[in-house]
């Protein structure tokens, strides 16, 4: 798929993301796809820091920082004010991490999409509270070490399926995307831009710091997450129509886990069990997309 992207960047150098930060890559592509008529709502997350301290900003669009749990609500207010001023063209974009989306921000997000507020909500998912130093979130996958799931107490619950939670609200558009598939990511952002109502994008954004991963492997690991079906990329329209955007050959999850420090405590048995979970989830997704597994 050819990428139709402007040369203009809305993210400048001088941001304070870590080397290999998946969330910085995600931001670059999302803003390129949306363009300058965008206002960003940024609840507490890594990007609250990455965007830079007062009086500087690494983004070339208007940006409002807000409290951790308010991504859905602040965006509702920005949209309401723009509508009252007759500006229906500017896109309101909430940019939140997995904590601000899956956990503390879930109430405001659920409230906003139930009202079908007209904005795009992007969750860049690095699978833990990375800004505060790698604590578990409900997006942290089964098997992962974090500073609050250390040693033998590694996380023994599955990752919350946030897209399905949004789909249950019957929102007009929900999709997953990955920094390793920028064409697909840009296509989805551009598509979301022209849909009215609540749109949700779940972007897999690797975190070398929190995952115990070499910085240069950040994009590779994100690609492997898709190729192993750990993080399938797909779209759901109106809470009903599923489209899977990449059909994997089904690589083994072991290879994905091997490269990351956060999974190094897992035994062969644990990995086999995780492979089963991933296979089951993939089969379920195929069914939803009307593609019944063999």
């Amino acid at each position, binding site marked *: 798929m050819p990428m139709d992207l402007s040369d203009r960047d809305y993210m400048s150098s001088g941001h304070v993301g870590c080397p290999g930060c998946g969330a910085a890559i995600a931001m670059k592509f999302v803003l390129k796809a949306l363009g300058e008529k965008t206002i960003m709502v940024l609840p507490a997350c890594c990007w609250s820091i990455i965007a*830079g301290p007062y009086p500087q900003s690494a983004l070339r669009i*208007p940006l409002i920082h*807000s409290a951790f749990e*308010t991504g859905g609500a602040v965006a509702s207010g920005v949209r309401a004010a723009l509508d009252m001023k007759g500006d229906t063209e500017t896109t309101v974009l909430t940019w939140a991490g997995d904590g601000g989306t899956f956990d503390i921000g879930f*109430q405001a997000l659920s409230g906003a999409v139930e009202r079908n507020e007209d904005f795009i909500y992007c969750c860049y998912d690095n699978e833990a509270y990375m800004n505060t130093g790698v604590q578990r979130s409900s997006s942290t996958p089964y098997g992962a070490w974090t500073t609050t799931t250390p040693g033998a107490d590694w996380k023994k619950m599955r990752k919350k399926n946030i897209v399905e939670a949004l789909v249950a609200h019957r929102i007009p558009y929900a999709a997953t995307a990955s920094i390793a598939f920028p064409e697909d990511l840009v296509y989805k952002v551009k598509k979301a831009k022209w849909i009215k109502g609540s749109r949700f994008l779940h972007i897999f954004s690797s975190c070398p710091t929190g995952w115990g991963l070499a910085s240069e492997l950040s994009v590779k690991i994100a690609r492997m997450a898709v190729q192993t079906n750990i993080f399938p990329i797909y779209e759901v329209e109106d809470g009903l129509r599923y489209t899977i955007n990449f059909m994997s050959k089904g690589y083994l999850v072991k290879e994905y886990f091997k490269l990351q420090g956060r999974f190094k405590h897992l035994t062969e048995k644990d990995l086999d069990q995780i492979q089963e979970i991933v296979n089951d989830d993939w089969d379920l997704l195929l069914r939803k997309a009307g593609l019944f597994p063999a």
Partner: protein
Amino acid sequence: MKKVLEGSQAVAEAVRLGRVEVISAYPITPQTHIVERLSDFCADGSLKARFLRVESEHSALAALIGAASTGARTFTATSSQGLALMHELLHWASGARLPIVMAEVNRALAPGWNIWTDQTDSLAQRDTGWMQLYCETGQEVLDTTLQAYWLAESVNLPVMVILDAFFLSHTYEPVDVPDQEAVDRFLPPFKPRFQLDIQNPCALGQMAPPAVYMEMRHSLQQAMEETPQRLAEMETIFEKSFGRRYGPVEAVACEDAEIILVTSGTVTSTGRQFLQDLRRQGEKAGLLKVKMFRPFPYESIRRYLKSAKKVAVIDRNFSFGASGIFAQEIQAALCSLPVHPIVFGYIAGLGGRDVTLSTLEEIYRKTRDQDLPSQESLWVGLHEVDHANGSF
């Protein structure tokens, strides 16, 4: 035009006349009549505003933070637990210097569940950087709501317009509702000093390192300090159009008074009646109503109280482990004077218990007959509760 309105409806009339653009609210008793009336105005087109029916008070204020940052005139209303839930964002709104106006209906906090009036909910928010204006009547509620926008937008601070649950929110009174044209002259469209604007991209509310954070807080305090002057200016304009003014405090018969009762909210009306009785009996008594609690009107308070012998502060609120909150602040205001009156702090009417003429009589008698208060806070009207037998 005179209309017979509830206190809640008076708030809603002012919001309509103020041409508020974005309303966001979550219902809570006894605030509901305000948002219901505003819903009617939005539905019948008499107010052109977006009304966000959000899923919590926290989101109600968060949405207004977004809307006000985008340059809209905004309103919300809440009470008690709802205000407590907003607490985090109260700081956010003032720190971001947003001129949001909120009606706050004073209601007691649970447990036990209690929907009746009590000021602890709003007074517990005294350090959040919001102006606080306590109202006595339906007319004052309407006028103060309009004035709140003028003040908020002139110094870039949020304002709480505060009214007692039921005694004011649900009480019908004749209220003079001003003409739209007159209100438009008093309150022109909101022109924000800064806002989210795609023509001029900037970041709002971002990280502030130690090198700048303190200066930001200081500028907020400077805005608070500027407020009394702005209030006086605003009231002169308001009085010219509407013939009414209130001031940060109102002193009744304080010039020669030896004992002055200090009140806020609807207790003031009972106090006015009581004062007449006292004066008729030849008592040298006075009454000071405190309307503006933040910024605290130190100068006015000192001016009216300094020559009294004793001051009896009636607090319908309490700070546990300390004392009544108005009493604390009034003591602090007076103690820097070389000679100052003795402050008696009374706790009365918590959780909606009536503060009647006889309550005030007891307070006055105790103050007159004792040289010094026997305790930091003197609780009035406590009765024996037999929990085991359920009698009280």
